[in-house]
């Protein structure tokens, strides 16, 4: 250890090494107490030490002594030992003998005295560290007082290396210390220049410098070729702390413009790692040179605030507007890249600067939140239920369900019960399974609604009690609902697990599907939804197949389709001799379908060509979709399956007549094939608010028309609210969208659904608890923990890592990592430092 310390090491990793090893040594006894003989004997060549001499207790030196003691730990980081030398009373040698010597501290390198410090120059830890390093780093940090001195140094450096120029209002301050500490690390890389003269600052281009606060400028002298011109300078915007200086120098060392030829989502640069945004200039082969110049120009403007990368579109297949020329990637995980169409480089600057302002605020907020959360995070919340269904069911456990309407079936009673009623509905469930129990609750509501209905028996089988029945009935998952028709067949319910949907299904499946209609009157009544009367109260659409006696093939297919759609759609068929009268009335020739939507007045007619039952099912399902539906939780999947973009009109309550008419016109128009036009009633579907919040952060004023590319890219576009919602306006807006002329308001997260929380790592626990456990015999031990527990998206966010956790990691002795980890560690160190100086 000491051998290394003898050398001036500016490599940062070694500093880290020291830092990380400090806590294990503890801070006690850092200040050595020796007598003069011991002290001078202990001095080693090249090794620096700070000593002060005292005759036992001298009350006046007490506060000074405390500060020296406190700084011992900080100085130890730089290989400087701090020694209190106790002078024997009779000693009259050089350091002990003189009275005023006792009010000074002495800095030795080996046994050579470098500097005497009067105690008033060493008033606190900052001043001690600053002054001691200042004395030792005599060559690395040039102190200048005049502009000429500064220019001379600058000129000498041109083409050779860069300069770090710092102004501090006074020496011995925290800022001075930060500069000296940075110089200790970077002194061999850059030339450090320090001044306390505010006039020098004035000349650096800053007309009205704030002379009360310290400043640091990075002077790009290495690239400077013109001796007449001063080096280009980049001021550091933040306060002078060790961490900020380190960050600034890191950013200055990064390439000005990074050339990128991969998916921007995957790109990571120093900037992102340090919590700064990255601006992509999208380039093409044709415009490469110009783009490169733009990028460099922007990069100089943004130096220290954001990174700039040149992204070649020819190499990356980007799913964004062709017009987009700039992309912005923020360091926050999970925030998608924003693609923009900008006209001026100033816009980029504004964008980045606004961004950083917002972030500053957010960070402050986050910090507060984090502090609150910390307690909870400790136990990781793994044992807290985060499944909404399971939790809801457990909370509802004690409520007694009104199950008296539902017959309990057992292995013994199952088969006999099925024979007793025309239709037996059986819910197969497991009494320990949450989704089953949730459905059981809806099922009781169904039972309540169907109370007294003839010919329908509601029953349930608990598969946890009677696994035999469930296996025999081919029930492999819970819950399953089957409807048994006496002595015949059974139908598996495949609709939504909701009260209303299930009730309708049970009622509709009571009527045979398709239903044979005997007279024209019945057929007409059927289309009006009045026949059969028991279904009139259930909201449904009716499909009537009209067949001539000759078209038996189509009729059979229709009957087969009816089998499949039973319970979801009511289907009737008419094939009496006078079927022609019906077909004439609706202007179709048999075989044909007549389609009456619930609530709609008109009857649509579709002629049937040769079709299989499957085709017919598909066709009927498709035809039953509304042209301009109100989208609800229940019906979304039907429209979702079309895999088209959605054009949604969000409305608080019913939509206005005008919008409705215009939208319907639009939906009926030629573009109908390309997208789903629909509307969403926030009164009926309040979760729509959640959607709007996700798109626009708040609920905007309504009605609002939104275009969502649900299945391709996930961009969300907002129809300009100042334009009236008319077919024409929408169509021209859609044209612009298609042409890539609009900018999305937001983009849907593309993230996978990862495990919400880690699992207990029992393998690890076993190894920790029983080290002798022969678990290592397996040869691929190393790669196992890679995946388990999984790497979660947030893990890489070094900048957000809580410092206290980081130091914890250091204690455990984490192996060397890449530079990403350095910033937070420094931050942690700084925090500690602060605490020390506050003492």
């Amino acid at each position, binding site marked *: 250890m000491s051998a290394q310390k003898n050398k001036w090491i500016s490599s940062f990793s070694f500093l880290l090494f020291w830092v990380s090893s400090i806590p294990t040594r503890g801070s006690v006894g850092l200040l050595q107490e020796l007598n003069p003989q011991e002290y001078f004997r202990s001095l080693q060549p090249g090794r620096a030490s700070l000593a002060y001499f005292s005759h036992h207790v001298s009350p006046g030196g007490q506060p000074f002594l405390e500060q020296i003691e406190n700084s011992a730990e900080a100085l130890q980081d730089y290989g400087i030992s701090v020694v209190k030398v106790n002078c024997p009373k009779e000693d009259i040698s050089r350091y002990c003998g003189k009275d005023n010597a006792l009010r000074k501290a002495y800095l030795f390198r080996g046994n050579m005295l470098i500097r005497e410090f009067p105690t008033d120059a060493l008033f606190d830890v900052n001043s001690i560290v600053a002054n001691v390093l200042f004395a030792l780093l005599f060559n690395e940090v040039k102190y200048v007082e005049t502009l000429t001195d500064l220019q001379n140094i600058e000129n000498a450096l041109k083409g050779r290396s860069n300069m770090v120029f710092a102004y501090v209002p006074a020496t011995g301050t925290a800022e001075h210390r930060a500069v000296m500490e940075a110089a200790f690390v970077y002194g061999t890389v850059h030339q450090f220049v320090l001044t306390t003269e505010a006039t020098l600052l004035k000349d650096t281009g800053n007309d009205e410098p704030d002379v009360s606060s310290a400043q640091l400028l990075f002077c790009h002298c290495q690239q400077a070729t013109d001796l007449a011109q001063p080096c280009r300078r980049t001021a550091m915007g933040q306060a002078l702390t060790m961490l900020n200086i380190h960050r600034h120098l890191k950013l200055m060392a990064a390439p000005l413009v990074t050339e990128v030829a991969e998916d921007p989502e995957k790109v990571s640069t120093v900037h992102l790692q340090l919590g700064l945004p990255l601006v992509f200039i999208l380039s093409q082969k044709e415009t490469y040179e110009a783009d490169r110049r733009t990028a460099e120009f922007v990069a100089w403007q943004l130096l220290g605030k954001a990174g700039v990368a040149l992204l070649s579109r020819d190499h990356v297949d980007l799913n964004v507007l062709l017009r987009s020329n700039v992309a912005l990637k923020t360091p926050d995980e999970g925030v998608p890249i924003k693609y923009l169409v900008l006209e001026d480089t100033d816009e980029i600057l504004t964008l980045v600067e606004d961004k950083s302002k917002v972030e500053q605020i957010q960070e402050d907020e986050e910090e507060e939140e984090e502090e609150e959360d910390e307690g909870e995070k400790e136990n990781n919340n793994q044992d807290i239920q985060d499944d909404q269904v399971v939790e809801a*069911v457990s909370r509802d456990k004690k409520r007694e369900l009104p199950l008296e309407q539902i017959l309990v079936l057992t292995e013994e009673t199952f088969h006999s019960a099925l024979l007793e009623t025309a239709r037996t509905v059986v819910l197969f469930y497991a009494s320990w399974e949450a989704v089953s129990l*949730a459905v059981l609750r809806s099922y009781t509501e169904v039972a309540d609604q169907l109370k007294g209905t003839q010919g329908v028996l509601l029953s349930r089988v608990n598969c946890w009690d*009677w696994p035999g029945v469930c296996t025999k009935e081919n029930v492999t998952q819970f819950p399953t609902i089957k409807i048994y028709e006496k002595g015949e067949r059974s139908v598996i319910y495949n609709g939504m697990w909701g009260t209303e949907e299930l009730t309708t299904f049970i009622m509709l499946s009571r009527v045979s599907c398709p239903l044979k209609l005997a007279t024209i009157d019945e057929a007409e009544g059927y289309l009006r939804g009045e026949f059969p009367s028991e279904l009139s109260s259930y909201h449904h659409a009716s499909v009537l197949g009209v067949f001539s006696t000759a078209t038996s093939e189509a009729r059979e297919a229709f009957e087969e389709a009816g089998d499949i759609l039973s319970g979801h759609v009511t289907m009737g068929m008419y094939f009496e001799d006078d079927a022609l009268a019906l077909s004439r009335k609706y202007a179709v020739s048999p075989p044909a379908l007549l389609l009456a939507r619930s609530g709609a007045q008109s009857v649509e007619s579709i002629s049937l060509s040769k079709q299989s039952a499957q085709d017919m099912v598909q066709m009927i399902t498709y035809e039953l979709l509304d042209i301009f539906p109100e989208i609800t939780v229940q019906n979304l999947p039907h429209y979702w399956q079309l895999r088209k973009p959605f054009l949604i009109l969000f409305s608080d309550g019913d939509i206005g007549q005008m919008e409705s008419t215009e939208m319907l016109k639009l939906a009926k128009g030629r573009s109908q094939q390309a997208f789903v036009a629909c509307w969403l009633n*926030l*009164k009926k579907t309040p979760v729509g608010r959640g959607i709007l919040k996700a798109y626009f952060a708040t609920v905007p004023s309504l009605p609002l028309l939104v275009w969502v590319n649900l299945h391709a890219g996930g961009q969300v576009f907002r129809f300009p609210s100042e334009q009236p919602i008319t077919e024409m306006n929408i169509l021209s807006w859609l044209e612009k969208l298609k042409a890539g002329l609009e900018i999305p308001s937001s983009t849907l997260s593309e993230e996978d659904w990862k495990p919400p929380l880690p*699992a*207990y790592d*029992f393998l690890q626990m076993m190894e920790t608890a029983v080290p002798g456990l022969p678990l290592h015999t397996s040869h691929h031990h190393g790669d196992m923990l890679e995946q388990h527990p999984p790497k979660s998206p*947030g893990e890489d966010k070094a900048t957000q890592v809580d410092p206290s956790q980081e130091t914890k990691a250091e204690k455990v002795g984490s192996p060397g990592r890449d530079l990403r980890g350095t910033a937070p560690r420094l931050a942690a160190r700084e925090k500690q430092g602060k605490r020390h100086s506050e003492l």
Partner: protein
Amino acid sequence: LGLALYTGSLCAVNSAAFLYHDYCIIGAGPSGLQAAYFLQQAGRDYLVFERSHAPGSFFALYPRHRKLISINKRYTGKSNSEFNLRHDWNSLLSHDRRLLFRRYSRDFFPNADTMVRYLEDFASLLKLRVQYNTAIIHVTLETDEQAWNGHYFLLTDQDRQNYKCSSLLVATGTWVPNVVNFPGSEYVEGYETVSINPEDFAGQTVLILGRGNSAFETAENILGVTNFIHMVSRSRVRLSWATHYVGDLRAINNGLLDTYQLKSLDGLLEGDLEDLAIIKDKKGKLHITLRFYLENRNTSASIDSITLPQDELDNFATRAPYDRVIRCLGWKFDFSIYNRSLRMMPGKGNKKKYPQIKPSYESRGTRGLFVLGTASHSVDFRKSAGGFIHGFRYTTRAVHRLLENRHHGVPWPSTVYPITQLTNSIIKRVNEASGLYQMFSVLADIILLRENATAFEYLEEYPVGVLAELETQTGRKAPNGLFVVIMEYGRNFSGADKDVFYYNRAVGEAQHAWQSNFLHPVIYYYRRLPTEREMKLRPPDWPLPRPDAIHHIVEDFLTDWTAPNAHILPLRRFLENCLSTDLRNFFAESCFLFAFTHQKLPPFCRQGYMRMQGLVGSEGLRRRAVEAGLLEDYALTDFLGDRPPDSPEGSQDQLLRDHVIPVRPLQHLVNAKDE
């Protein structure tokens, strides 16, 4: 099969002396009948050979004192027939509910005659093809490339009738008494013939050789009338409640321990029977001495001149003379009927009473020869229940499934489920499956993952010892990783000298589940099928090699692993992290929100809601979810305006955020270390 039938009939023509069957089963005991049942169900050509006139001839004689020590639990408080088999140790597996043992006996420890009657019914009710009064006295091989296994099995019975079989299932049990030869062993009576009438022992002093259940059963019977009983055996007594092995001394038989430890009336001694010698004096009393003394003496000397240990050591423990010495040393497999070419070798060490077999129950020496029942116990001797009806009824089924795949191209039965059912299917099985429970650490359920982990295939009760051969043995493919569901006791809990009643023996918290001691489910996760080499190199006492991840479901006093937070939640987290997905359930409303705000959906929404099977949920239930902060009630905002973001029920947002919350699992590990 066609070929098999063809060759079969060909053989019948060519060599009329041979009667051909695809499968021959030797022995119509419980495992022979069990195998016959499965073959019959599958419609296979099989025949069972039984030397007696009725099934279960061993049970007609043994146990001598007629009390079975396999429990017949008629009430469990549950109607689940699969679960109830966990506490029914006598029934064989069948579809016929009449053939449950609780219908045959009301006794907790039933009479052996009942077992005989049960087996008779099992064979006759199920119409199993058993040829009685046929003792197979020789088995040899006939090499034939056409045969399933490259050879046929040729069986000869006592009447020189020959049989030819493609596959041989040996279900003969272990029925040859273990005998020890030492000077004077002719004075020893065997367990097989000793009187069971206690009156015959009145006022006698008895020495029993052996320390198994038969020895204690014999002692128990005469305990009340003898002067005293001493028991000698090489090993210490092993109590089954301490070892969790049902073959060790059961509490029902250990009355002698009571009198020994309380009042030193009866006693146990440890010693090697090989060193013993027994001499009979003129009065007919039997004296214990050591073989060593006998070897040194002059052959012509009279009995009186033989040195007894007490001559040199006057407090020698067994210095009192005995009236009777009874041998109760258990049984071994009958190796005598097999031709050398079958290489039926005895096992090593304490397994030498069993033939050597692979974990697939196939003989190590001969392909196509499977050992079933008690004789197959070498696989899990002193560990699990494979030597007993309640264990081998499952391993027999497993063997049948292996055979179906090997010879008839019928892959191991399996069910394919969507991934959303993963947690459920494991919970269902660990709570009710009896095969996993009885054959703990031997049979395991296997879950084969389909590509992209959107679905999985569930295989029940596969012999875990041949996990590496899973693909060839089952005809199922495992390219995308697998879970193995198995039941285990705590690794250091059971044992002959362990105190199984120590304080805090039960683990209550899910996070310490790996320290569970009582039988509990363990799930191993492998990203790829372990190789045979890895199986060989697995840690001692581990049924399986080191997995990529492991999960223990915490032991439960009621063996009911359905608690949402203690059992199901940690299991779900484990599965989620292995598959790197989110397996939570969501109400339809949440899925609706996700559909409009995410490009991808969690599996539950994708496989349920989007296929029109969304969980709408009753109003009351959704309100509960809102209370829990796991669902946001957007309707409320109508009245309250926009809620501040930090309100305690910030909920749906919370849910959305949960999903992107930066989780730091490594940091969790670090914390754990710190503790």
